[in-house]
């Protein structure tokens, strides 16, 4: 009929294969979307706490180094930048280490899961469990295209689609069918493939021993629900190097927090703000320059709000400042708790004496991280962030009250001396990281191993070719 005729009024210039990972290929058919996508390479915008510049979080706030002592995040942690950099940043991060061979650690293949459209390709080719079972290193030559079209689109009709098993499985675990989602929900769910809290489940039936990517949503999205989930299965991400508490790491629960806010309540989707509609040269299309909406208030916020740009930005900053104020307070309490716990061990505390204290530290820091790891959270849902920080402060204080009492029992009834962690370098030194070594290893990886593996990728992709469409009409 005429409708579908119109749909394909434009002339596609290539046929896009079912697992096409190369964004350039898609770009041949959809040049505007592709060009705007390529703008995620721009790193010039900075806002009060966000933007596309890479922000070294450990430098900005060295308390984090201490809070993550014993875990890779204490080595290196940045506020993300554009999707264009997803692959580069993972290569560069000290967290991914410096493997020399494809079997080397430290990281599993699962770390690639959210970094680009080669992942669904590999999962289709080899199987999901098989993909997760691999090493990070062996996939350096496989996952090379940064987050792009095939992550979110069906090549046949450009419909939005979900390509990551973890999200589909999480829906199942909650008793929901993701295929029943509405169009508007899909405009957030494509983001929820990655912008969510996760953990690696090593006990998944049928995949024992594999780092199986899992979203802990079975009891719900709230901070308490996920906490209960982890407590129930006795999971912890790592043991804190100083306090020995069994810790949880929260990673970017953007979608979960967003859902508790008023914008979600009113049916607004991620794409409404981060991928607004745009006019250029008399053409309207979805702006694929995913970025802070504060760099684009006119097309995002002002579609719905008639206030001036400066006021809208001030609204965002005010919410962020209010939440940061209490976030920092909670960090200060947590730092003290870890150090005091370390002191208690030093003075001969027993496991039994420490048990409740360590659980309180675990829960308090989990609440802190839940608010800190979502860089947009304090705007997406400021009331919820306030609530979670309050509950973290209450929990952390319980830990400290118990600690002070225990320390007195152990003969130390005075404030415990706090280390100087006023810079990232000092804090990293204090927790015993040999940063020079780590950086040196990374350099070696980047100049020796990495180029070799990327060559392999190039050779592989060279064989993929491009499938030109032969026009069927005049």
């Amino acid at each position: 009929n005429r409708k579908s005729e119109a749909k394909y009024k434009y002339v596609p210039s290539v046929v896009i294969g079912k697992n096409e990972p190369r964004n350039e290929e898609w770009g041949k058919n959809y040049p505007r979307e592709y060009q705007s996508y390529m703008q995620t390479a721009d790193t010039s915008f900075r806002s009060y706490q966000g933007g596309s510049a890479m922000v070294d979080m450990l430098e900005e706030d060295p308390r984090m180094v201490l809070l993550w002592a014993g875990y890779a995040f204490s080595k290196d942690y940045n506020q993300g930048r554009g999707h264009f950099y997803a692959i580069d940043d993972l290569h560069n991060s000290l967290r991914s280490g410096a493997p020399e061979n494809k079997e080397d650690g430290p990281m599993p293949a699962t770390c690639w899961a959210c970094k680009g459209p080669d992942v669904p390709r590999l999962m289709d080719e080899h199987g999901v469990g098989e993909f997760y079972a691999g090493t990070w290193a062996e996939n350096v030559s496989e996952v090379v295209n940064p987050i792009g079209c095939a992550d979110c689109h069906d090549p046949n009709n450009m419909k939005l689609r979900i390509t990551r098993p973890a999200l589909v499985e999480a829906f199942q675990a909650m008793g929901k069918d993701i295929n029943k989602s509405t169009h508007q929900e899909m405009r957030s769910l494509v983001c929820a493939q990655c912008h969510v809290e996760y953990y690696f489940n090593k006990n998944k039936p049928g995949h024992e021993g594999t780092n199986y990517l899992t979203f802990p949503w079975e009891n719900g999205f709230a901070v308490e629900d996920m906490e209960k989930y982890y407590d129930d299965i006795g999971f912890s991400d790592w043991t804190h190097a100083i306090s020995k508490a069994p810790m949880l790491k929260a990673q970017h629960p953007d979608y979960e927090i967003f859902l508790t806010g008023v914008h979600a309540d009113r049916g607004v989707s991620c794409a409404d703000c981060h991928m607004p509609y745009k006019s250029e040269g008399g053409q309207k299309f979805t702006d694929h320059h995913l970025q802070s909406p504060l760099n684009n208030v006119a097309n995002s916020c002002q579609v719905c709000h008639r206030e001036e740009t400066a006021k809208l930005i001030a609204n965002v900053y005010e919410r962020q400042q209010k939440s940061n104020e209490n976030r920092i307070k909670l960090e200060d309490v947590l730092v003290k708790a870890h150090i005091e716990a370390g002191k208690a061990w030093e003075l001969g505390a027993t496991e039994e004496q420490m048990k409740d204290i360590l659980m309180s530290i675990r829960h308090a820091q989990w609440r802190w991280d839940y608010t800190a790891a979502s860089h947009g959270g304090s705007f997406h849902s400021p009331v919820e962030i306030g609530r979670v920080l309050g509950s973290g402060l209450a929990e952390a204080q319980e830990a400290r009250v118990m600690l002070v009492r225990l320390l007195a029992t152990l003969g130390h009834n005075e404030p415990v001396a706090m280390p100087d962690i006023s810079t990232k370098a000092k804090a990293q030194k204090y927790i015993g990281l040999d940063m020079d070594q780590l950086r040196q290893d990374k350099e070696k990886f980047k100049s020796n191993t990495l180029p070799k593996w990327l060559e392999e990728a190039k050779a592989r992709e060279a064989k993929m070719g491009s499938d030109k469409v032969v026009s069927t009409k005049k």
Partner: protein
Amino acid sequence: MKFNFKILPEKGSSWRTFAVFAIAVVMGMGFFLMREAEVVSYLSDNPQACVNCHVMTPVYNSWMHSSHREWVSCNGCHVPQDNIFNSYYFKAKDGLYHSAVFTARAEPDVITMREASEEVVQNNCIRCHIQQVTEVKYDGWLDNHRENRTERACWSCHQEVPHGRIHGLSTVKYNIAPLPTDLDEMVIPEWLAKEIEAQ
């Protein structure tokens, strides 16, 4: 390799298709009138009816990205809402007119509202926003309204509401109406569906 659109119409069949479609619209109207409640929800909630015509795709897309998407769909603005009878009358008339124009392939590139439609739309703006724009009490909140609200079309100021500032068929190159996903279709690729089933 030949790119094969299986939904591409046979040459010359489009007139037929649209005659059928136009008749279906009219008959459908009558049929629905018998089941009033459903008619109401169909008419007010489903913009799919409008976007069946490709010429409506640009306006559909702009509405879809507008501040009003969550509140009101096409008919809420373009069809009188003062009484149910009037709604259907206007809509049937409109539907016939649109399909006639469409069928004759006479649609202009930049469609504009007819005067009668403008009045309908203006009344609908007022229907929802009456208190905000007419009550002295809210002047402090909307201090610009008192003088101008009556003589002009709302969208002479609120140019973005709801279709944006640029109009016309050629403003959406691919003319892809965002495909709703709440039909029977899957939102996950086949390999993933199989994998999930296997679990």
